[in-house]
């Protein structure tokens, strides 16, 4: 009992100190505002993102060497507009009903996607067939006991190949107030792909969509990376004029607001492996593999 009392007192002291500090800062702020001076800045709360461990591979915008390397990599032809994306969608070996519902949603997402039945083909053979038919990407959705759990993206003809773990899937019909997507080419939003690996994955996602979006369709696909989890969202947006009543520090008057309607599907991806070249699990080379001894800190992220 004595030990827990001592610990309890210690915690209580800490809380008291914290409350005193906050009160002091609040009083200083009020005094400064009353005196007409600029108040001291509010202390920013520490989050995992802003206390992220420093990563040497984060790309700087002025890095010429990386720029030259990217100008010549596997995705360069796409970004130079020499090649348009053509995606081949397929499934694991024994798809169930939920797989077909997900595929129906995905076919609405990618502008130029075709579904082919798996028919027990090997992935290596599928890569060859798809390359011959001038597909630029092969996407294989994996399923385990009626649970969709993986997505393999193979960029053709020479790779790379990324395998993601897919989770938190919500189909369009399960989303409340969902809309029906049109056939307009969507805009693409890629957030927080800051490291060299993240940049490569971002370019891989970008190469699945056309370079020229149709803004008239007001459709947007978002890949948002946060703490190495990639959140996929599909929305339609509309800009509306709205009257501001002067609440929450905003000025009174007429402003423009964006309203979103989710079209679905919605899922989360986590990169497991990135392989150089096309799929070859036995003999291929890996550019990045997640290993448990890489998780040295909660503040370390790779994308």
């Amino acid at each position, binding site marked *: 009992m004595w030990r827990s009392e001592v610990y309890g007192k210690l915690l209580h002291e800490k809380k008291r100190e914290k409350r005193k500090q906050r009160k002091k800062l609040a009083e200083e702020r009020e005094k400064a505002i009353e005196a007409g001076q600029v108040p001291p800045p509010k202390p920013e709360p520490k989050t995992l993102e802003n206390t992220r461990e420093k990563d040497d591979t984060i790309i700087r915008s002025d890095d010429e060497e990386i720029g030259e390397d990217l100008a*010549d990599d596997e995705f360069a032809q796409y970004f130079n507009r020499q090649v348009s994306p053509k995606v081949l969608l397929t499934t694991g070996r024994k798809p169930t009903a939920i797989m077909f519902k997900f595929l129906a949603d995905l076919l609405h997402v990618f502008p130029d996607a075709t579904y082919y039945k798996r028919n027990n083909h090997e992935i290596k053979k599928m890569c060859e067939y798809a390359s011959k038919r001038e597909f630029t990407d092969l996407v294989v959705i994996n399923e385990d006991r009626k649970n969709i759990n993986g997505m393999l993206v193979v960029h053709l003809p020479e790779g790379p190949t990324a395998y993601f773990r897919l989770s938190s899937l919500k189909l369009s019909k399960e989303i409340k107030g969902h809309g029906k997507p049109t056939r307009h080419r969507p805009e693409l939003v890629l957030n927080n792909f800051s490291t*060299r690996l993240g940049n490569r994955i971002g370019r891989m996602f970008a190469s699945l969509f056309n370079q020229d979006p149709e803004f008239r369709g007001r459709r947007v696909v978002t890949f948002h990376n946060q703490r190495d989890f990639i959140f996929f969202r599909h929305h339609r947006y509309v800009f509306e004029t709205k009257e501001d009543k002067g609440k929450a520090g905003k000025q009174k008057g007429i402003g423009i607001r964006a309203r979103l309607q989710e079209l679905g599907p919605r899922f989360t991806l986590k990169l497991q492996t990135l392989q150089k070249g096309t799929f070859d699990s036995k003999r291929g080379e890996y*550019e990045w593999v997640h290993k448990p001894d890489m998780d040295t800190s909660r503040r370390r992220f790779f994308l």
Partner: protein
Amino acid sequence: MAAPCALRWAVGDENGVVRVLAAGPGLEGTNVVKKYGEMDRSRGVEKILAMPVEEQDDCRIVVGRKNGTVDVLEGQTGAVVATFECNKGRNTISQHARVRGMAFLQEHQKILMCSRGGGMAVHTTKDSWDRDSGSELKGPVDCAQVDRTHTCLAYGGEGRELSVVDLERQGDRAWRARQPEPNKMGVRPRAWLSAVDFVGRGPDLVLVGTADHEVRLYDTRAQNGHVMALPFGESRVTNIASQLDGSLVWLANAMGTLQKLDMRKHLLEATLRGPCASIRSLCHHPERMLLASAGLDRFCWIHDTVSRKTLYKSYLKNQLTAVCFLPEQDAKLVEEGDRAPTKALHGRSNPSTDPSARPPAKKKRGKGL
């Protein structure tokens, strides 16, 4: 008292750029002191060697490239002293042009090179850089290595079991490995050798790594079949680096696993932590207990093989394909080129002059409150 020497190593990447890095006493962290070559993916570096030059008390850097050319660069300036063609006079497709084996035969002052298609050439390095001889190996050659007595060349590849060739009677096959026995299912897997090295100083023991996650030891004096076979990792074995005394061999694979194989017990032991991508090149320091590795994760690692700690780790922006140690140099002579300082690890701002020294023992925590 001798001036403190900086550890130096050269790293080549897939864009054909060669960087010389230095670290050690007198230098803060790891520095990229030289950078040679323009970015050109068709001239990506496949192999890299240090060629000591006695008169200049320095070394030249020999670089084998993806298009089958071998360049000899001046160590201090990077100027191209000579260029050779591995596939001269042969009709070779682009996939088979790349240099797969390179060796500097110090006693004869010659450079040996071979390409994936099987074209082998030997050039002299004294005065003229003429082609001394050329021959043909049975390709495709995915791995090739010359032993430390410079008498034999061991090579193998996709669909080709290990062959050992006598260098003096070039083209004459001295020894060839027998195919392994079929497995329980009656299937004999297709040969695909992806790494080879001679164990120790002699030309007799050869360790090979296959694309089917196996390492096999052959004794050329004893028999044609393998003496030992061990499964290693879950992907293609990419590199093998033997310690000079032959007691230990370091194995690397395409998933970034870097593990020690004890040659006396024939057991896989401890791993070196760090790399998370395919390790394209391994180099053991000729004198010290250090191992350099470079791979597709764009990092070059220097590990202390005794304590298994990472000494230096450098991020070099592009996918790295080759690494070798260069002769150590006085830290004051090491010129500062592109500054790419990286942390020297274990909280030390200047690593100890003796990298093989063990780190201090951890303090024990006191009990209770």
